[in-house]
């Protein structure tokens, strides 16, 4: 499964990748574009080679920590409309505690480590880069 895609995410694909008869607990996380203010969508861009390598490293670390679990993630790139998912993570483990923990680990590491950037697009045609530190840079239409 490709970790980076420009197509809408399908959680069922992720579930199929992690499900197994020995794994009784499955946790799914999706991150969805919000309608903050008059935002109509977010354009996601990435340093794709590094993002792919970093995702592989994060999943490897999760696998090493929860050896009986299976975790998969996909991140969508390109313009994503409000209401559609930008990221989906599925974690399956023999029991629910490890599924929750592995899923949480992966999304938190993604937030800290993936070289991906967001540009908010608004109804009036303006755009701005999203800076998690809170500093926004606005551009005209």
């Amino acid at each position, binding site marked *: 499964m490709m970790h980076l895609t420009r197509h809408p995410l399908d959680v069922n694909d992720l579930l199929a990748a992690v499900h197994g008869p020995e794994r009784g607990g499955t946790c799914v996380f999706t991150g969805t574009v919000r309608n903050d203010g008059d935002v109509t969508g977010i354009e996601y861009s990435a340093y794709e*080679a590094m993002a792919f390598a970093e995702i592989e490293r994060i999943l490897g670390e999760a696998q090493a920590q929860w050896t009986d679990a299976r975790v998969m993630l996909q991140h969508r790139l390109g313009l994503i409309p409000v209401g559609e998912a930008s990221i989906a993570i599925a974690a399956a483990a023999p029991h629910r505690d490890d599924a929750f923990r592995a899923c949480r680990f992966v999304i938190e590491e993604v937030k800290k480590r993936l*070289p991906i950037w967001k540009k908010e697009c608004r109804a009036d045609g303006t755009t701005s880069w999203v800076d998690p530190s809170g500093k926004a840079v606005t551009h005209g239409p």
Partner: protein
Amino acid sequence: MGKVSVRFFARYAELAGCTWSAVNLETPATVADVIAQVREVFPGTKALPPQPLAAVNLRQVRLDALVNEGDEVALLPPLAGG
């Protein structure tokens, strides 16, 4: 002198006016040395923060990390994945 690739992304690409370039400098150098040279070559990048995030060969590194000829240095705006 060694040639080092430099990549810019998102807002930093807008500041640099390009997404990819190369600089020549004495190697091994540090990431900070590469950034100092980038600031000279691309005036728009003077607006970069004093200590931007950086990666060498697809791994995030500190600014005192060593850079060798042929390496790829990437300057990363604040990460916003997820």
